[in-house]
């Protein structure tokens, strides 16, 4: 299919505001009489607040109000609270003070006296799993995502059965198995049995999750930093204690989220509760240190993987056990995603997965770009190298041999895929990178520098379905595309809206995107997370636009004779195919729709849409031609996002530092919707992957539960000088059959394949040193080169 808009670059409507400073993020709004909120955070990793005396603070001039856990809805554990009397990590907010200035609010916090009763705390999941080990939650140590907590303890015998540097393996929380795993290992020519650790690391979005709120006529106006729009609203309404229609979310711009602002987060509602209490608008500016506490981080892993390979390198059996180091909340199920990812990317003939998520007294964790899949990539890709080198197989060949295709089934339920072209992506990347030549450079010395060549792959689900498309053709002929997806910064809110213009055959200049504010009558859309937007929202907008198109054709037939089939759309008109001079402009058609009423102007609508969409349609009814429909386009199998990265480094054997000389990222994301946007994702994912592989981790003092990294210089997101000055990109651009324009998502795996490619390159430069630990930091490399023992114990977590 030839497209007019899809696959072409354009200037997204929000970019000018970004470069002029006019883009308004949550902390950029002001109101006369606005108060400033500051949070008092727990200094202890686990405690009960026994007494709280804020009387001296409240006496201060300019202090207007206080909010404690007693003033806000109780969100039951293990979900994150709004405020708490049972702090479960250093930084857990206990109370908020509102004052006429930040200065006064900050000074007032120092006058609050709190008596804490310390509780036992735990940083290392294995300590919690040991009999008698501390539990974060009253209801247990295993916190299920969006579920309850339960208690699972392993036996002392489980621990004793493992050697000191092996993962003990007691009862898991989840497990599945397919094929005969034990027979697979028995038949394997090579078995690798490896213990690994992947560090958790914070999302560290540039915009801290500041929030601003006020009330008017019973409605709560909440300005929050959000990746999503309508998808968040029901939860925010619940947290604020109002009906969905009374929660007005304003979130036009989001200064980065990476998964941490995808769904509603309770602390964003602190200014709403405070504002309700004191009757004035409230601004809560979140500090960088607070963002490290409240802003989420990736789950850490302790695990073991056993891999059985045939002589040719085919993975015939895999056995994965993941202990997840979660935070003090219901952590995202990365541990389960890792099992699915192993099954999908490496297609073992038989596989067993077991996993258990353990809550620890560290900040809440959440989905971060490739949650579970990207940790798994960092574990597996170096081991694929190890297997290849041991078996004497080319490192690319072993990956191709095991790579999925469109017929692959995976996981315990043997799920299917909509399409998969990972092998094509790998070949595309290998060609761009010149793999055959580059691999010969592996190990080449130039003074103290040695060349390392790495390759990595990763996966994430790449789309969803069943959401509502909504557009309105106004009487002036403008096409207003309503999107509730949010604006994460990927521009996909805009590029997927162009499907509407594609379907309606209209110019992009004639389209207006309505978004960012509940008052703009937005449809029910999935949030902008999980690499789903390109797939989900192209389907969704297609559904809304097809509905509008059908109505245009019907109106034309009514007015000009014949049937709808005799008409088509193009050039902002609906026209008679046999004689295009017989036509209605969109403006005329919209006016006719208003006159006709009923379904044409939104007075009637499809019943299968979400109540949020219906309310929006109702509000727009009678103002133009309304296209509104649920995405009922057929689906078949999971649409995967797949990607590979090739990296060349020069590693300095005297300092443990390396320079990334070449980076090639290639994506299999179906039809390319927006090349510039895709290139941003491939490079940006690469930058985050470079951080994950070599720089970023959480560090906690095991003695007192204190976090060591609460600033950028400690948490170390990559800077300009830590990444290559130029990063090459490629893509397969092969349509997915289940999407009307062939698109699939892509954002997340680009980080995992880059991270694993870098680790692969480091191990390659070191002549085959596999750390089984992410990140690989300079001291690990130096110790390896100097033949010194590593400072950490094999299963240690949160260490330096």
């Amino acid at each position: 299919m030839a497209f007019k808009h899809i696959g072409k670059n354009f200037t997204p409507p929000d970019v000018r505001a970004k470069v002029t400073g006019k883009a308004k993020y949550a902390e950029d709004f002001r109101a006369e009489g606005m108060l400033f909120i500051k949070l008092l955070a727990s200094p202890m990793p686990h405690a009960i607040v026994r007494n709280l005396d804020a009387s001296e603070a409240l006496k201060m001039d300019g202090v207007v109000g206080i909010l404690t856990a007693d003033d806000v809805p109780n969100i039951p554990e293990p979900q994150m609270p709004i405020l708490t009397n049972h702090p479960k990590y250093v930084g857990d907010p206990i109370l908020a003070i509102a004052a006429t200035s930040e200065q006064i609010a900050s000074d007032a916090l120092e006058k609050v006296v709190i008596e804490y009763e310390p509780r036992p705390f735990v940083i290392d999941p294995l300590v919690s799993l040991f009999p008698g080990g501390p539990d974060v939650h009253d209801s247990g140590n295993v916190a299920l995502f969006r579920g309850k907590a339960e208690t699972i303890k392993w036996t002392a015998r489980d621990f004793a059965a493992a050697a000191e540097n092996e993962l003990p393996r007691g009862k898991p929380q989840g497990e599945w198995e397919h094929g005969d795993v034990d027979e697979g290992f028995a038949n394997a020519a090579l078995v690798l049995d490896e213990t690994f650790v992947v560090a958790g690391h914070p999302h560290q979005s540039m915009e801290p999750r500041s929030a601003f709120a006020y009330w008017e006529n019973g409605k709560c106006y909440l300005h929050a930093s959000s990746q999503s729009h309508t998808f968040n609203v029901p939860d925010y309404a619940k947290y604020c204690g109002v009906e969905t229609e009374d929660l007005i979310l304003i979130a036009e711009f989001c200064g980065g989220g990476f998964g941490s602002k995808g769904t509603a987060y309770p602390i964003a509602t602190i200014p709403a509760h405070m504002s309700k209490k004191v009757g004035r608008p409230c601004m809560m500016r979140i500090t960088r240190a607070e963002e490290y506490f409240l802003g989420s981080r990736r789950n850490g892993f302790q695990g073991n993987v056993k891999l059985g390979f045939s002589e040719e390198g085919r993975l015939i059996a895999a056995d994965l056990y993941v202990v997840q180091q979660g935070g003090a909340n219901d952590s995202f199920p990365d541990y389960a995603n890792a099992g699915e990812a192993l099954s999908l990317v490496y297609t073992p003939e038989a596989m067993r997965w077991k996993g258990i998520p353990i809550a620890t007294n560290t900040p809440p964790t959440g989905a971060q770009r490739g949650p579970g899949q990207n940790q798994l990539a960092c574990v597996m890709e170096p081991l694929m190298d190890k297997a290849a080198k041991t078996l004497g197989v080319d490192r690319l060949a072993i990956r191709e041999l095991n790579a999925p295709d469109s017929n692959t089934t995976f996981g315990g339920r043997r799920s299917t895929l909509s399409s998969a072209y990972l092998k094509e992506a790998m070949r595309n990347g290998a060609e761009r990178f010149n793999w055959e030549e580059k691999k010969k450079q592996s190990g080449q010395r130039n003074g103290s520098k040695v060349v390392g060549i790495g390759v990595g792959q990763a996966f994430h689900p790449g789309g969803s379905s069943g959401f509502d498309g909504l557009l309105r053709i106004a009487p002036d002929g403008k096409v207003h595309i309503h999107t509730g997806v949010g604006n994460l910064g990927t521009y996909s809110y805009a590029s997927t809206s162009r499907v509407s213009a594609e379907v309606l055959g209209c110019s992009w200049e004639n389209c207006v995107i309505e978004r960012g504010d509940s008052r703009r009558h937005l449809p029910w859309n999935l949030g902008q997370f999980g690499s789903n937007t390109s797939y989900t929202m192209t389907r969704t907008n297609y559904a809304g636009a097809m509905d509008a198109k059908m109505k245009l054709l019907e109106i034309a037939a009514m007015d000009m004779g014949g049937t709808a089939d005799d008409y088509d759309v193009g050039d902002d008109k609906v026209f008679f195919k046999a004689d295009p001079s017989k036509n209605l402009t969109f403006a005329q058609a919209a006016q006719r729709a208003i006159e006709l009423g009923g379904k044409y102007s939104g007075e009637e609508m499809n019943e299968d849409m979400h109540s949020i969409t219906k309310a929006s349609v109702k509000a727009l009814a009678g103002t133009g031609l309304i296209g509104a429909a649920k995405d009922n386009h057929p689906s078949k199998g999971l649409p995967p996002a797949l990607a590979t990265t090739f990296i060349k480094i020069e590693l300095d054997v005297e300092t443990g530092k390396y320079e990334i000389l070449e980076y090639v990222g290639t994506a299999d994301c179906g039809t390319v919707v927006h090349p510039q946007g895709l290139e941003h994702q491939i490079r940006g994912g690469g930058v985050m992957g470079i951080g994950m592989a070599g720089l970023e981790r959480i560090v906690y003092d095991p003695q007192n539960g204190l976090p060591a990294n609460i600033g950028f210089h400690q948490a170390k997101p990559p800077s300009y000088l830590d990444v290559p000055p130029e990063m090459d990109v490629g893509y397969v651009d092969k349509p997915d059959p289940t999407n009307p324009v062939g698109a699939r998502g892509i954002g997340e795996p680009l980080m995992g394949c880059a991270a694993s490619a870098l680790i692969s390159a480091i191990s390659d430069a070191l002549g085959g040193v596999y750390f089984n630990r992410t990140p690989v930091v300079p001291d690990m490399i130096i110790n390896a080169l100097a033949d010194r023992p590593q400072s950490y114990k094999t299963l240690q977590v949160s260490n330096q």
Partner: protein
Amino acid sequence: MANDTHQDANANTGQPPVFEEARDPVTRRAFIKSVIATGAVASTGGIMLVSLSGCSDDATPAAGSVERLVNLNINGKSRPVDVLPNETLAMTLRYKLGLTGTKLACDRGECGACTVLVDDVTHNSCSTLTHSVRGRAVTTIEGLEQPDGTLHPVQQAMIDELGPQCGFCTPGQVMSGVALLKNNPNPSREEARQGLAGNLCRCGAYDHYLNSIMRAARVS
């Protein structure tokens, strides 16, 4: 409001209501009100201004300490403003002058999101005391656009190359780019990389920002 592009209908987002504060007869208060008025006129966002963040009426300065009422040279205009001794330039700009294009991302001089020019030299405004820029020319992101809407070449290049992702670090990246090109109109890519090295971007748009700087250097 902020978004002035024709395809984005978000023209009047989130105008909060006005809450009248009790009138305060103190002279300094009146002065602040006049500051507010000035701020409202000069601010680009058309938003309602302004709260008195950072101001505390109970502070009694020690003898010889700085005068709180100062005139600042911001984007070529003299702006009267009441500044506490411990107040950072970022807070003054954002909360007293309505110049919210300067972003606070770390408030510790670690990320560059709050970068402004002081006498054409990049400063992290979060780590600059406002009192230290008295008598010096401060340029913020709002000061780059010509009255006729023409953008600075760095800004225009960032549109043409689609430099930003989420946009939160973008004003700081622009300011570092502007300062770089003032000193070195034809930088190499490596010089541009070094020049912008103090500006973090978590989205990882570095390559696109560098492309933008190089384009701006070519066209200007």
